[in-house]
C-alpha cells in the first residue's frame, strides 16, 4: 500500500520534471529579451514556492500522526515477545500469535546490528525496526490476517546476512 503510493507519487512527479527539462531544452524561438523572461520565471517560482508549501505542509503533518514510535512497554492486552538477533539467526521467545491482538516485539541484538523486518506471504514488507546491541527497540504490530509470515534481516550483518530468516505463525 505505502509502497505503491510511493511508487506512483514518484512517477507522477518525475514524469513532469522530465517533461519540463525536455521542453526547456528544445524551446524555440530564441528570446530577444532574456531579462524579461527571467523576471517572469522567477515570479512563477515564487508562486510555486507558496503552492508547494500549502500542499506539502498538511500532508507532512498528517504523516507525523502515523509514526511507529512510543509503544508503551507497560501496556496490557498485548502479546509481548523478546527478539534477539545473532549472527546469523533470530531468537524469538515466541513465534505464534493471534490475529487482531497487538504484538510487541522487543528487539535487540547479541552481536552486531541487524534489522528485524516482517514480510507477509506475498513477500511484501509490512514493518521493521533495527536490532542494535545494547538497545531494545519496541515494535508494535497487529496482524490482520492469519497465515505464515517471514522475518528477514534488513541490516547488513556479514556473510550470511541474506540467509538470516525466521517464520511467524498467526492464527485466528
Amino acid at each position, binding site marked *: 500500500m505505502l509502497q505503491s503510493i510511493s511508487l506512483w507519487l*514518484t512517477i507522477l512527479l*518525475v514524469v513532469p520534471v522530465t517533461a519540463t527539462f525536455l521542453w526547456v531544452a528544445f524551446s524555440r524561438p530564441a528570446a530577444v529579451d532574456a531579462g524579461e523572461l527571467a523576471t517572469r*520565471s*522567477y515570479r512563477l517560482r515564487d508562486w510555486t514556492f507558496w503552492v*508547494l508549501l500549502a500542499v506539502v505542509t498538511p500532508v507532512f503533518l498528517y504523516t507525523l500522526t502515523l509514526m511507529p514510535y512510543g509503544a508503551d512497554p507497560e501496556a496490557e492486552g498485548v502479546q509481548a515477545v523478546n527478539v534477539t538477533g545473532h549472527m546469523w539467526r533470530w531468537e524469538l521467545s515466541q513465534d505464534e500469535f493471534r490475529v487482531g491482538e497487538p504484538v510487541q516485539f522487543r528487539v535487540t541484538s547479541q552481536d552486531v546490528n541487524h534489522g528485524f523486518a516482517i514480510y507477509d506471504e506475498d513477500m511484501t514488507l509490512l514493518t521493521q525496526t533495527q536490532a542494535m546491541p545494547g538497545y531494545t527497540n519496541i515494535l508494535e504490530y497487529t496482524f490482520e490476517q492469519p497465515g505464515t509470515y517471514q522475518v528477514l534481516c*534488513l541490516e547488513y550483518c556479514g556473510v550470511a546476512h541474506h540467509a538470516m530468516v525466521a517464520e511467524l505463525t498467526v492464527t485466528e
Partner: protein
Amino acid sequence: MSDTTMEMAVPRGPRNAVITYLATTVVVLLLMMVFGLLMRLEQAGVDLLGAAGFYQVLTAHGAGMVGAVALGSSAVMWYFLRRHVELSTGVFLLNLALFLLGAVLILGGIFVGGFAGAWTFLYPLPQTPMGLWTQAAAASFFLGLLAIGVGFLLLYIDIARALIANYGGLGRSLGLPQLFGRAGNPPPPAVVASTMVLIVNTLGIVAGAAILSMSLINLYQPGFEIDSLWAKNLIYFFGHVFINATIYMAVIGVYEILPHYTGRPWKVSRVFLAAWAASTVMVLLVYPHHLLMDFSQPTSLHVLGQVISYTSGLPVLLVTAWGALTNVYRSDIRWDIASGFVFLGVFGWAAGVIPAIIDATIVVNTVMHNTLWVPGHFHFYLLLGVVAMMFGFMAWLTRAQEKGDGFFDRLGFWTFTGGGLALVAAFLYSGASSVPRRFAEHLPEWAAYAQLGSVAAALVILGTLLLALRFFLGLKRVANNVA
C-alpha cells in the same frame, strides 16, 4: 553561441593536476561500475562472486564510488575556484597522493585481507569478522578511509586560507553581508558554493575521523567500549555530509559551464545566497533520516530528520534546477555532450531527490528502509546527477571547438543516459516490491529486476567507456581550450 574565447588561461601545472584527478576518477569509476555489474549479475542468479565475494565487492563499490566521485567533483570545484582565489597546486596534489594511498589500503584490506564490513563500517561489524577477515584487514580499511579524509581536510584548509585571505572571512565568501542587505557585489557562485562545502565537509570529516579512530582503538583494545547508537550517529553524519558535498562541488560546473552555452550569466541573487546559507545548515542537520528505524533514538531527532529532508529539497529544486531551466529556456543553446551532460546532471539531481524525500517520511521509511528503494534514489542523483555533471566538465575541457561532437560522443551520451535511467528504475521498482538491499542472493521472483538491472549496468559501462576514451584521446585539446 560561440565559446572559443571566454576562458582564462590556466598554467600547465594546475591544468595537469586537474587532468590527473579526472583521469584517476574515470579509471576508478569504470572499475567500480564493473563491480556494480558483477553484484547485479549475482543477484540475477549468475553466480560469479559467491556470498563472501559479493559482500567484499559491495564494500569496495561503496567506498570506491564515494571516493571517486569526491575526487572528481573536487577537481571541478578546484578548477573554477582557482579563477577567483589563489590555491596551492601542491596541496591539491597531496590530496591525490593520500587518496591513492587510501585506495591501496582499502583495496588491500578487502581483497587481500577479506574485509567486508561495508563502506559504512557500522560498529561493531568490522570488529566481529566471524573468521572472514583479520584484524589487520579491518585496520587497513580504517586507515585507508582516514588517509583519504586527511587529504580532503588539508585541501579544505588550503581553500579556507585562500578564501579568508581574499574575502576577509568565510561569512563574507558565503555572501552573508549581501544576503542581509549590504550593498556591493556578492561573491561569484563558485566561491559561495566552495565556502559551503568546506564548512560542512570539514565538520563531516572530523566526525568521521573521530569514529574511525575509536573503531581502530576498539579493534585492538575491546575494553575501550563504543556505544553502537552513538557510533551510528557519527558514521551517518559523516557519510551523509561527505557524499552530499560531492553534489555541491560538482554543481559549480553547472554554474560555470551552462552560461557559456546560453550566453546568459548566472546571476547571484539574494535567493541564491539564502539557498546556499540555508543548505549549509540543513546538510548538517538532515542525517537523522538514516536512523528512522532506530526506535531508541529520541523522537525529536526523527522528526527533525523528516522536516529537514523536506525543506532541503527546496534550494535544489527552486534555485539550481529552476535557475538552470531559466538560463536555458529559449536561449538558442547549442547542445553538445558538455552542455548536455551538465543539464542532465541538474535533471538527475532534481528528479533524484523526489524518491529520496518520499523515503525520508517516517511512515514510508518503515517499509522502504534498507530496501533497494534506497540505492534507487541515491544512484539517481549520484550517477545521473554528480557523475553527469563531472562528465560535462570533462567533455567541456576536451571539446573539439570547430568539429563539434562525433557519432560516438552522442552514442556515449545516450547509452549512459538510457542505461542510467533503466538502472535506477530497476532499483526503485525492486524497492517498491520490498526487495532488500545488500542481499547477495535474491529470491527467484526478484531475479527479473536484477536481470534488467544487469543489462542497464552494461549500457552505463559502455557509455562511460566511450566517454572515457574521448576524454583520453581529447587530452591534447585541453591546452588549446583553456590556455
